[in-house]
Protein backbone atom coordinates (compact mmCIF):
# COMPACT_ATOMS: atom_id res chain seq x y z
CA UNK A 1 0.00 0.00 0.00
CA UNK A 2 2.76 2.37 0.90
CA UNK A 3 4.47 1.31 -2.30
CA UNK A 4 1.46 2.26 -4.40
CA UNK A 5 0.99 5.49 -2.46
CA UNK A 6 4.56 6.50 -3.27
CA UNK A 7 3.96 5.85 -6.95
CA UNK A 8 0.73 7.80 -6.92
CA UNK A 9 2.31 10.82 -5.24
CA UNK A 10 5.15 10.74 -7.75
CA UNK A 11 2.66 10.38 -10.58
CA UNK A 12 0.90 13.46 -9.22
CA UNK A 13 4.16 15.37 -9.35
CA UNK A 14 4.68 14.03 -12.84
CA UNK A 15 1.27 15.23 -13.97
CA UNK A 16 1.99 18.64 -12.47
CA UNK A 17 5.21 18.84 -14.45
CA UNK A 18 3.43 17.62 -17.56
CA UNK A 19 0.72 20.21 -17.29
CA UNK A 20 3.27 22.98 -16.81
CA UNK A 21 5.38 21.93 -19.73
CA UNK A 22 2.31 21.28 -21.85
CA UNK A 23 3.37 17.89 -23.06
CA UNK A 24 1.16 16.63 -25.88
CA UNK A 25 -0.80 13.60 -24.83
CA UNK A 26 0.15 11.75 -27.99
CA UNK A 27 3.65 11.11 -26.76
CA UNK A 28 2.25 9.62 -23.59
CA UNK A 29 -0.01 7.39 -25.65
CA UNK A 30 2.96 6.25 -27.69
CA UNK A 31 4.82 5.50 -24.51
CA UNK A 32 1.81 3.57 -23.32
CA UNK A 33 1.89 1.38 -26.41
CA UNK A 34 5.59 0.87 -26.06
CA UNK A 35 5.50 -0.01 -22.39
CA UNK A 36 2.32 -1.90 -21.76
CA UNK A 37 3.45 -3.35 -18.45
CA UNK A 38 5.74 -0.94 -16.76
CA UNK A 39 7.70 -2.60 -14.07
CA UNK A 40 6.88 -1.38 -10.65
CA UNK A 41 10.38 -0.16 -9.96
CA UNK A 42 11.53 1.71 -6.95
CA UNK A 43 10.68 5.38 -7.50
CA UNK A 44 14.12 6.53 -6.35
CA UNK A 45 15.54 5.91 -9.81
CA UNK A 46 15.11 8.84 -12.14
CA UNK A 47 13.18 7.24 -14.93
CA UNK A 48 11.30 9.34 -17.40
CA UNK A 49 8.02 10.56 -16.01
CA UNK A 50 6.22 8.98 -18.90
CA UNK A 51 6.47 5.65 -17.23
CA UNK A 52 4.80 6.95 -14.11
CA UNK A 53 2.16 8.66 -16.19
CA UNK A 54 1.55 5.56 -18.18
CA UNK A 55 1.45 3.61 -14.96
CA UNK A 56 -1.35 5.76 -13.68
CA UNK A 57 -3.07 5.52 -17.06
CA UNK A 58 -2.69 1.79 -16.81
CA UNK A 59 -4.64 1.95 -13.58
CA UNK A 60 -7.39 3.97 -15.15
CA UNK A 61 -7.61 1.76 -18.21
CA UNK A 62 -7.92 -1.34 -16.10
CA UNK A 63 -10.93 0.35 -14.50
CA UNK A 64 -9.93 -0.44 -10.99
CA UNK A 65 -12.47 0.58 -8.43
CA UNK A 66 -9.87 2.28 -6.36
CA UNK A 67 -11.12 5.72 -5.40
CA UNK A 68 -7.59 7.11 -5.26
CA UNK A 69 -6.86 6.39 -8.90
CA UNK A 70 -10.19 7.74 -10.05
CA UNK A 71 -9.67 10.95 -8.15
CA UNK A 72 -6.19 11.20 -9.58
CA UNK A 73 -7.40 10.82 -13.15
CA UNK A 74 -9.90 13.58 -12.57
CA UNK A 75 -7.17 15.76 -11.14
CA UNK A 76 -5.04 15.20 -14.22
CA UNK A 77 -7.83 16.24 -16.50
CA UNK A 78 -8.74 19.19 -14.30
CA UNK A 79 -5.15 20.40 -14.16
CA UNK A 80 -4.84 20.17 -17.94
CA UNK A 81 -8.09 22.07 -18.44
CA UNK A 82 -7.05 24.72 -15.93
CA UNK A 83 -3.74 25.18 -17.71
CA UNK A 84 -5.54 25.71 -20.99
CA UNK A 85 -7.98 28.14 -19.41
CA UNK A 86 -5.16 30.13 -17.84
CA UNK A 87 -3.46 30.37 -21.20
CA UNK A 88 -6.67 31.49 -22.84
CA UNK A 89 -7.31 34.08 -20.13
CA UNK A 90 -3.82 35.52 -20.47
CA UNK A 91 -4.20 35.72 -24.26
CA UNK A 92 -7.50 37.59 -24.07
CA UNK A 93 -5.79 40.70 -22.80
CA UNK A 94 -3.35 40.86 -25.73
CA UNK A 95 -3.67 41.12 -29.49
CA UNK A 96 -6.04 38.63 -30.95
CA UNK A 97 -4.06 37.58 -33.95
CA UNK A 98 -6.08 34.51 -34.85
CA UNK A 99 -9.51 35.49 -35.99
CA UNK A 100 -11.00 32.44 -34.37
CA UNK A 101 -10.18 33.82 -30.97
CA UNK A 102 -11.97 36.99 -31.90
CA UNK A 103 -15.12 35.13 -32.76
CA UNK A 104 -14.89 33.13 -29.57
CA UNK A 105 -14.45 36.20 -27.43
CA UNK A 106 -17.26 37.81 -29.34
CA UNK A 107 -19.49 34.85 -28.55
CA UNK A 108 -18.89 35.51 -24.90
CA UNK A 109 -20.49 38.88 -25.37
CA UNK A 110 -23.35 37.24 -27.30
CA UNK A 111 -22.84 38.86 -30.64
CA UNK A 112 -21.60 37.68 -33.97
CA UNK A 113 -19.70 40.02 -36.20
CA UNK A 114 -21.15 40.18 -39.63
CA UNK A 115 -19.58 41.85 -42.64
CA UNK A 116 -19.45 45.60 -43.06
CA UNK A 117 -22.24 47.40 -44.75
CA UNK A 118 -22.01 47.59 -48.49
CA UNK A 119 -24.98 49.56 -49.75
CA UNK A 120 -27.49 47.35 -47.96
CA UNK A 121 -31.02 48.46 -47.30
CA UNK A 122 -30.81 47.59 -43.66
CA UNK A 123 -32.83 50.42 -42.14
CA UNK A 124 -36.48 49.52 -42.42
CA UNK A 125 -39.62 51.10 -41.12
CA UNK A 126 -40.90 50.29 -37.72
CA UNK A 127 -42.36 46.81 -37.26
CA UNK A 128 -44.47 45.99 -34.21
CA UNK A 129 -42.14 43.28 -32.97
CA UNK A 130 -39.95 43.35 -29.90
CA UNK A 131 -37.25 41.13 -28.48
CA UNK A 132 -35.45 40.89 -25.17
CA UNK A 133 -31.78 40.56 -25.97
CA UNK A 134 -28.78 40.14 -23.68
CA UNK A 135 -25.39 41.73 -24.32
CA UNK A 136 -22.76 40.95 -21.76
CA UNK A 137 -24.63 41.15 -18.50
CA UNK A 138 -27.27 43.68 -19.54
CA UNK A 139 -30.64 42.91 -21.08
CA UNK A 140 -32.65 45.22 -23.28
CA UNK A 141 -36.15 45.13 -24.72
CA UNK A 142 -35.55 46.21 -28.28
CA UNK A 143 -37.63 46.84 -31.32
CA UNK A 144 -36.86 47.84 -34.87
CA UNK A 145 -35.15 51.21 -35.06
CA UNK A 146 -34.15 51.53 -31.40
CA UNK A 147 -30.78 52.64 -30.13
CA UNK A 148 -28.95 50.83 -27.39
CA UNK A 149 -25.99 52.03 -25.39
CA UNK A 150 -23.85 49.12 -24.25
CA UNK A 151 -20.38 48.75 -22.83
CA UNK A 152 -17.62 49.12 -25.38
CA UNK A 153 -17.79 46.10 -27.66
CA UNK A 154 -14.39 45.02 -28.77
CA UNK A 155 -13.78 43.48 -32.17
CA UNK A 156 -16.26 45.65 -34.00
CA UNK A 157 -15.77 48.93 -35.77
CA UNK A 158 -18.24 51.68 -36.53
CA UNK A 159 -20.62 50.79 -39.36
CA UNK A 160 -20.39 47.08 -38.65
CA UNK A 161 -23.31 44.74 -38.77
CA UNK A 162 -23.83 42.60 -35.72
CA UNK A 163 -26.08 39.69 -34.96
CA UNK A 164 -27.10 39.45 -31.34
CA UNK A 165 -27.73 35.80 -30.79
CA UNK A 166 -28.71 35.71 -27.13
CA UNK A 167 -32.43 36.39 -27.43
CA UNK A 168 -34.54 35.64 -24.42
CA UNK A 169 -38.00 36.60 -25.56
CA UNK A 170 -39.77 37.54 -28.75
CA UNK A 171 -43.06 39.32 -28.93
CA UNK A 172 -45.58 40.67 -31.38
CA UNK A 173 -49.12 41.95 -30.95
CA UNK A 174 -50.51 38.43 -31.31
CA UNK A 175 -47.76 36.10 -30.22
CA UNK A 176 -45.12 35.77 -27.52
CA UNK A 177 -42.27 33.29 -27.67
CA UNK A 178 -40.43 32.71 -24.42
CA UNK A 179 -36.98 31.19 -24.45
CA UNK A 180 -35.62 28.78 -21.88
CA UNK A 181 -33.32 30.54 -21.33
CA UNK A 182 -32.51 31.59 -24.90
CA UNK A 183 -34.21 31.04 -28.23
CA UNK A 184 -31.92 29.16 -30.57
CA UNK A 185 -33.44 30.28 -33.87
CA UNK A 186 -33.93 33.92 -33.10
CA UNK A 187 -31.58 36.62 -34.30
CA UNK A 188 -31.50 40.35 -33.81
CA UNK A 189 -29.58 42.40 -36.32
CA UNK A 190 -27.90 45.59 -35.26
CA UNK A 191 -25.51 48.15 -36.68
CA UNK A 192 -22.78 49.85 -34.68
CA UNK A 193 -23.41 53.58 -34.78
CA UNK A 194 -20.63 54.94 -32.65
CA UNK A 195 -17.94 54.17 -30.12
CA UNK A 196 -17.83 57.10 -27.75
CA UNK A 197 -17.03 58.11 -24.23
CA UNK A 198 -19.72 58.96 -21.75
CA UNK A 199 -19.72 62.25 -19.90
CA UNK A 200 -17.21 62.56 -17.13
CA UNK A 201 -18.34 61.56 -13.67
CA UNK A 202 -16.27 62.78 -10.77
CA UNK A 203 -15.70 60.27 -8.02
CA UNK A 204 -15.19 62.28 -4.90
CA UNK A 205 -14.17 60.66 -1.64
CA UNK A 206 -13.98 62.47 1.61
CA UNK A 207 -13.60 61.52 5.22
CA UNK A 208 -14.51 64.42 7.38
CA UNK A 209 -12.16 65.74 10.00
CA UNK A 210 -9.52 63.27 8.79
CA UNK A 211 -7.85 65.43 6.17
CA UNK A 212 -8.71 62.92 3.45
CA UNK A 213 -10.08 64.06 0.10
CA UNK A 214 -9.71 62.37 -3.28
CA UNK A 215 -11.07 63.31 -6.67
CA UNK A 216 -11.09 60.95 -9.61
CA UNK A 217 -12.61 61.45 -13.04
CA UNK A 218 -14.08 58.59 -15.02
CA UNK A 219 -15.44 58.34 -18.54
CA UNK A 220 -17.09 55.11 -19.50
CA UNK A 221 -16.53 53.78 -23.00
CA UNK A 222 -19.83 53.06 -24.68
CA UNK A 223 -21.04 51.63 -27.97
CA UNK A 224 -24.25 52.76 -29.56
CA UNK A 225 -26.07 50.08 -31.50
CA UNK A 226 -29.04 50.63 -33.74
CA UNK A 227 -31.38 47.66 -34.00
CA UNK A 228 -32.38 46.99 -37.58
CA UNK A 229 -34.13 43.64 -37.72
CA UNK A 230 -35.65 41.01 -35.50
CA UNK A 231 -36.01 37.50 -36.84
CA UNK A 232 -37.61 34.43 -35.41
CA UNK A 233 -41.20 35.50 -35.08
CA UNK A 234 -44.04 35.93 -37.53
CA UNK A 235 -44.56 39.54 -38.37
CA UNK A 236 -47.90 40.88 -39.43
CA UNK A 237 -47.92 42.31 -42.90
CA UNK A 238 -48.17 46.05 -42.77
CA UNK A 239 -50.65 47.52 -45.21
CA UNK A 240 -49.49 50.02 -47.76
CA UNK A 241 -50.86 52.91 -45.68
CA UNK A 242 -47.55 53.03 -43.93
CA UNK A 243 -49.19 53.01 -40.50
CA UNK A 244 -48.32 50.05 -38.31
CA UNK A 245 -51.22 47.87 -37.19
CA UNK A 246 -52.44 48.94 -33.79
CA UNK A 247 -52.62 46.26 -31.16
CA UNK A 248 -56.41 46.35 -31.10
CA UNK A 249 -56.75 42.60 -31.23
CA UNK A 250 -54.78 41.34 -28.31
CA UNK A 251 -54.66 37.56 -28.20
CA UNK A 252 -51.31 36.80 -26.74
CA UNK A 253 -50.52 33.13 -27.10
CA UNK A 254 -47.61 32.21 -24.98
CA UNK A 255 -45.39 29.58 -26.49
CA UNK A 256 -42.54 28.29 -24.40
CA UNK A 257 -39.62 27.14 -26.50
CA UNK A 258 -37.66 24.46 -24.73
CA UNK A 259 -33.98 24.77 -25.30
Amino acid at each position, binding site marked *: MAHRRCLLSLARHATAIISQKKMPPLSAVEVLTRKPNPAITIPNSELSWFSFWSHSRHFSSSKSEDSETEVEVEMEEASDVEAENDNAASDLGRDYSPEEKETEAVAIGYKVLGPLQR*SDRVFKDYEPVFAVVQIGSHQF*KVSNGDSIFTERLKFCEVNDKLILNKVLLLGSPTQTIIGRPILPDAAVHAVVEEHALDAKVIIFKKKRRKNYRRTKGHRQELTKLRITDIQGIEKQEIKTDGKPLKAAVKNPEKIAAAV
Partner: protein
Amino acid sequence: MGQTARPGPTARPKYGKVRTIGSAIAASLLPMALRGVWQLKKLIVSYCDWGGSSRGIRAFMESELPTFKEKNPQLEVVTELIRGQHPHLKGFYKNKNERVVCVKNMTPEDILLYATRLRNALGRKVVKLKTRHVTKHPSVQGTWTTDVKF
Protein backbone atom coordinates in the same frame (compact mmCIF):
# COMPACT_ATOMS: atom_id res chain seq x y z
CA MET B 1 -8.10 43.57 -38.45
CA GLY B 2 -7.72 45.72 -41.54
CA GLN B 3 -10.44 48.24 -42.10
CA THR B 4 -11.82 48.21 -45.60
CA ALA B 5 -13.24 51.17 -47.47
CA ARG B 6 -16.23 52.83 -45.92
CA PRO B 7 -19.28 53.82 -47.92
CA GLY B 8 -18.25 57.17 -49.32
CA PRO B 9 -20.32 60.18 -50.26
CA THR B 10 -21.76 58.22 -53.20
CA ALA B 11 -23.56 55.93 -50.79
CA ARG B 12 -25.43 58.76 -49.18
CA PRO B 13 -28.23 59.14 -51.74
CA LYS B 14 -29.12 55.48 -51.25
CA TYR B 15 -29.85 56.09 -47.61
CA GLY B 16 -31.30 59.48 -48.30
CA LYS B 17 -34.91 58.28 -48.31
CA VAL B 18 -34.68 56.52 -44.99
CA ARG B 19 -32.60 59.30 -43.51
CA THR B 20 -35.17 61.97 -44.14
CA ILE B 21 -37.77 59.90 -42.34
CA GLY B 22 -35.42 59.52 -39.44
CA SER B 23 -34.52 63.17 -39.33
CA ALA B 24 -38.15 64.28 -39.30
CA ILE B 25 -38.83 62.27 -36.18
CA ALA B 26 -35.39 62.85 -34.78
CA ALA B 27 -35.97 66.56 -34.65
CA SER B 28 -37.99 65.98 -31.53
CA LEU B 29 -35.42 63.60 -30.03
CA LEU B 30 -31.68 63.46 -29.79
CA PRO B 31 -29.78 64.10 -33.01
CA MET B 32 -29.52 60.66 -34.56
CA ALA B 33 -28.25 59.79 -38.04
CA LEU B 34 -25.17 57.84 -38.89
CA ARG B 35 -27.46 55.49 -40.72
CA GLY B 36 -24.46 54.23 -42.58
CA VAL B 37 -23.17 57.78 -43.02
CA TRP B 38 -20.02 58.99 -41.30
CA GLN B 39 -20.55 61.98 -39.12
CA LEU B 40 -17.07 63.44 -39.01
CA LYS B 41 -16.62 65.57 -42.12
CA LYS B 42 -13.31 67.27 -41.58
CA LEU B 43 -10.33 66.89 -39.31
CA ILE B 44 -7.83 69.70 -38.92
CA VAL B 45 -4.44 68.70 -37.56
CA SER B 46 -2.79 71.83 -36.22
CA TYR B 47 0.86 71.72 -35.27
CA CYS B 48 3.89 73.88 -34.74
CA ASP B 49 7.18 73.15 -36.42
CA TRP B 50 9.29 74.77 -33.70
CA GLY B 51 7.69 73.90 -30.37
CA GLY B 52 8.59 70.85 -28.34
CA SER B 53 4.98 70.08 -27.46
CA SER B 54 4.40 69.33 -31.15
CA ARG B 55 7.02 66.63 -31.35
CA GLY B 56 4.46 63.87 -31.01
CA ILE B 57 2.15 65.28 -33.57
CA ARG B 58 4.96 65.86 -36.02
CA ALA B 59 5.93 62.20 -35.64
CA PHE B 60 2.27 61.26 -35.99
CA MET B 61 2.03 63.19 -39.23
CA GLU B 62 4.99 61.34 -40.66
CA SER B 63 4.22 57.85 -39.42
CA GLU B 64 0.51 57.31 -38.91
CA LEU B 65 -1.40 60.06 -40.62
CA PRO B 66 -1.10 58.59 -44.15
CA THR B 67 -2.54 55.24 -43.03
CA PHE B 68 -5.29 57.06 -41.16
CA LYS B 69 -6.15 58.99 -44.30
CA GLU B 70 -6.27 55.81 -46.38
CA LYS B 71 -8.51 54.04 -43.90
CA ASN B 72 -10.97 56.93 -43.94
CA PRO B 73 -11.38 58.12 -47.52
CA GLN B 74 -14.62 59.88 -46.64
CA LEU B 75 -12.80 62.13 -44.19
CA GLU B 76 -11.14 65.36 -45.23
CA VAL B 77 -7.90 65.66 -43.28
CA VAL B 78 -6.11 69.01 -43.37
CA THR B 79 -2.81 69.88 -41.75
CA GLU B 80 -2.38 73.42 -40.55
CA LEU B 81 0.71 75.16 -39.27
CA ILE B 82 0.26 77.37 -36.24
CA ARG B 83 3.54 78.70 -34.96
CA GLY B 84 3.98 79.24 -31.30
CA GLN B 85 0.80 77.46 -30.27
CA HIS B 86 0.22 74.04 -28.81
CA PRO B 87 -0.95 71.40 -31.25
CA HIS B 88 -4.54 70.28 -31.40
CA LEU B 89 -7.01 68.23 -33.42
CA LYS B 90 -10.24 69.84 -34.55
CA GLY B 91 -13.14 67.71 -35.71
CA PHE B 92 -16.10 69.10 -37.64
CA TYR B 93 -19.28 67.05 -37.62
CA LYS B 94 -22.34 66.97 -39.79
CA ASN B 95 -24.47 68.59 -37.10
CA LYS B 96 -22.10 71.59 -37.20
CA ASN B 97 -20.49 70.59 -33.95
CA GLU B 98 -16.80 71.18 -33.35
CA ARG B 99 -14.67 69.12 -31.06
CA VAL B 100 -11.21 70.30 -30.17
CA VAL B 101 -8.65 68.03 -28.53
CA CYS B 102 -5.32 69.44 -27.39
CA VAL B 103 -2.57 66.93 -28.11
CA LYS B 104 0.41 68.68 -26.62
CA ASN B 105 3.20 66.43 -25.40
CA MET B 106 1.46 63.27 -26.56
CA THR B 107 2.96 60.26 -28.24
CA PRO B 108 1.92 59.45 -31.82
CA GLU B 109 0.02 56.40 -30.59
CA ASP B 110 -2.06 58.52 -28.21
CA ILE B 111 -2.75 61.03 -30.97
CA LEU B 112 -3.92 58.21 -33.22
CA LEU B 113 -6.21 57.03 -30.44
CA TYR B 114 -7.76 60.48 -30.09
CA ALA B 115 -8.13 60.86 -33.83
CA THR B 116 -9.86 57.48 -33.99
CA ARG B 117 -12.13 58.53 -31.15
CA LEU B 118 -13.13 61.66 -33.00
CA ARG B 119 -13.83 59.60 -36.07
CA ASN B 120 -15.88 57.03 -34.18
CA ALA B 121 -18.09 59.53 -32.45
CA LEU B 122 -21.24 61.29 -33.49
CA GLY B 123 -21.15 65.01 -33.08
CA ARG B 124 -23.61 65.05 -30.24
CA LYS B 125 -23.00 67.01 -27.12
CA VAL B 126 -21.37 64.94 -24.40
CA VAL B 127 -23.97 64.82 -21.67
CA LYS B 128 -24.80 62.19 -19.15
CA LEU B 129 -27.16 59.62 -20.60
CA LYS B 130 -30.71 59.64 -19.32
CA THR B 131 -31.43 56.11 -20.52
CA ARG B 132 -29.42 53.49 -22.26
CA HIS B 133 -32.32 52.56 -24.49
CA VAL B 134 -33.68 55.18 -26.85
CA THR B 135 -36.88 54.21 -28.61
CA LYS B 136 -39.74 55.83 -30.42
CA HIS B 137 -42.21 52.98 -29.88
CA PRO B 138 -41.93 51.83 -26.30
CA SER B 139 -44.78 49.35 -26.42
CA VAL B 140 -45.71 46.63 -28.89
CA GLN B 141 -48.44 44.73 -27.08
CA GLY B 142 -49.88 47.75 -25.34
CA THR B 143 -48.66 49.50 -22.23
CA TRP B 144 -49.53 47.65 -19.07
CA THR B 145 -51.97 49.22 -16.67
CA THR B 146 -53.59 47.75 -13.63
CA ASP B 147 -56.70 46.94 -15.66
CA VAL B 148 -54.97 44.64 -18.13
CA LYS B 149 -55.96 41.01 -17.68
CA PHE B 150 -53.89 38.22 -19.25
